[in-house]
């Protein structure tokens, strides 16, 4: 019975992943991450993703701060933050987030404050969506492992 649950969780996970790929939220780089996970680093993916979340939130806060200054927005600094955000997002396969960063960077290079604000909103939105779904995924994974773990002793 529990094994049944594990399988269902697995199916759900797969479905979620498929959805995310289909939506373009994730791209194949995420698969690369999954491949890097092995016995020596069994939690690699969640580890990296958590680092990513941590860093990204810092970046987003910084960006928000830079843009809130109505007098003089430091676009150059924004560009630097964005570069980092782009790099990390593309490295974990967060395609949509990365694309918004690209647009954001373009706006910042033109010193377009309005454009930057809009881009920031979109960025925050995309990031939140990604974060939620990935959390969901990891939760399911945890549950599945627990459920599967219970089953296996019986299997033998």
């Amino acid at each position: 019975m529990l094994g049944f649950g594990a399988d269902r969780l697995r199916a759900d996970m797969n479905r979620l992943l498929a959805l995310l790929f289909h939506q373009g939220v994730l791209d194949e780089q995420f698969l690369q991450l999954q491949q890097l996970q092995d016995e020596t680093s069994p939690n690699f993916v969640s580890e990296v993703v958590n680092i990513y979340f941590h860093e990204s939130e810092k970046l987003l806060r910084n960006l928000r701060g830079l843009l809130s200054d109505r007098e003089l927005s430091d676009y150059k600094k924004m560009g630097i933050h964005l570069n980092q955000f782009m790099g990390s997002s593309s490295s974990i396969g967060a395609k949509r987030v990365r694309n918004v960063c690209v647009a954001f960077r373009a706006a910042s290079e033109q010193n377009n404050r309005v454009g930057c604000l809009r881009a920031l909103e979109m960025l925050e939105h995309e990031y939140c969506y990604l974060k939620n779904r990935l959390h969901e995924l990891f939760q399911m994974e945890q549950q599945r492992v627990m459920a599967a773990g219970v089953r296996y002793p019986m299997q033998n």
Partner: protein
Amino acid sequence: MATVQKLHATSLSTTASSYGSCKVDTASADQFPAGLRVLVVDDDTTCLRILEQMLRKCMYLVTTCSQATIALDLLRESRGSFDVVISDVYMPDMDGFKLLEHVGLEMDLPVIMMSSDARTSAVMKGIKHGACDYLIKPVRLEELKNIWQHVVRKKWNENKEHEQSGSAEENDRHKRGGDDADYASSINEGTDGSWKAQKKRRDAKDDEDECELESDDPCASKKPRVVWSVELHQQFVSAVNQLGIDKAVPKRILELMNVPGLTRENVASHLQKFRLYLKRLSGVAQQQGGISSSFCGPVDSNAKLGSLGRLDIQALAASGQIPPQTLAALQAELLGRPTGGLVLPAMDQPVLLQASLQGPKCIPVERGVAFGQPLIKCQSSIGKQFPQSNISVEDIPSGFGTWPPNSLGTVGTPGNFGGLNTQNNNMLMQILQQQQQQQGVLPEPSHPINVQPSCLVVPSQSSTSYQAGSSTVPLNQSSTFNSSAIIDYSLLSSQPNNVSMGIGQVIDGGLKSTNVHNGYIIPASISPSASSCAVQADNCTSWQVRNSAVSFNTASQLPELVPNACEIQRSYDTKAAPLPYQGPGRNLGFVGKGDRVKQELNLDFVDNAKIQCLFFLGAMGLQIPRRLSCDDWLQIVERTL
């Protein structure tokens, strides 16, 4: 901050272990690529962690560092404990380029730059500062696997310098060769296609009248391989013409060519290939004697052909009708593989066939007809006849319809000819007309001849370069990525590892670097067994019909992808069908996989490649015959994970 500190601490410990292991097994440290000691510097913790893991997977000894200043100290304190440095460009405490300069000056280690900024200017800056390579984020495992080449290359170049301090010229050539390779390697994603073309043109200029000796293996005992560049071949051809095809012996050809560094053996083997090619043409001619008679009639004297001799396929390029890349492909085929079969763009095929129609007739008439030249000579002859016999020219395409598919060993399926429409015919005529007007113009062909052996991608072999399609070992991305990845359908079947995985990546790179025509519509006429995919030439004349490989330009990558996708589709359809969740009965299938997620993902690399191909297609928003629905994705994911 805490994470950063922690990582720094970890990095130190890694260093310690790497030092320890270095001392213990110096022998293995010398065996590239395993045991390569890499120092990674990046302020982005995410990327740092990912890189670390990837490098570990490559069996390299990794040390990570999040601050440039610390990295520099590390390098200074323990000289000789690292083989290569990978550094991010934008870092808070020190500019990556500064670090690059320091390392280059003080320690003379190869430094690889890394950034998410893929703009040409940024990449150029990196190269100017002396970076061995410039990786664009997201960095992929394949790219990292190849970084050992930079280390070796640098070492060998230094050795060469010492050995051959006298012959500076050769040094320059080697160094340039090395640099060029460096430029080309891994600088793919986002790099301007035109930038590469410029570089190649420069190369071509540099190599005029020189026999370009490329050493595959810097080891002195191996003879450097001669690459028959266009110019070199021209010289060969004119030498043969002068001597007469019957009397042309390698020794005399060599003398006439007067190219330093060329040996009699090189000439002999090339001559052999040339002769085979001519034989093939004449064999073809006999079959189509009827059609070509009308053309060869007016063909005059040796003198005339001789004057046409200067015309070349390059002139055709100059006409602008055939994009340089296709011509290069054409040339490469002609030069490199007369026996391997010429695979030509659908558009060019009429041209070639026309030529071949005429060629064989010409040959009996004129012994002096040279290798590359028959094509153009004959065309020019045809062109000259234009005013007189328009009809006959137009007949050609229809004539092609009956052309036996493998007469030249080249022509695609007869279906290709069916695909020829008036558009192609008109273009053909334009080409021929322009041909008349232009003489001896020698535009720089894009230089891929040296870099892209345009051979078939065959499953059992794997390749050192994408373009080469897979003849040797899996993807070596340091080799020039000309955005002409070749994907073979047979790759879908069973493939060693990286080849497949990389391909997906390469496609992406290629796609990014070209302004691919979005919304390119691929007709649905894809047959499972045949590997040709009819491509509508409306959008871009450089789109070519392919029959499983040959080097082609960036634009033509997509049609290759699509058949792949369709093949994938099909395979998935049949195999994925039983997958839909059914209930307990299905548990068996899953149980086995149940523990997969926890452990290393046992991705079948082939599957991964398929998925990657699909992802890219999906990402590019291409319309493929069967659009992947969410369910399709689900099936794919289930199959993978």
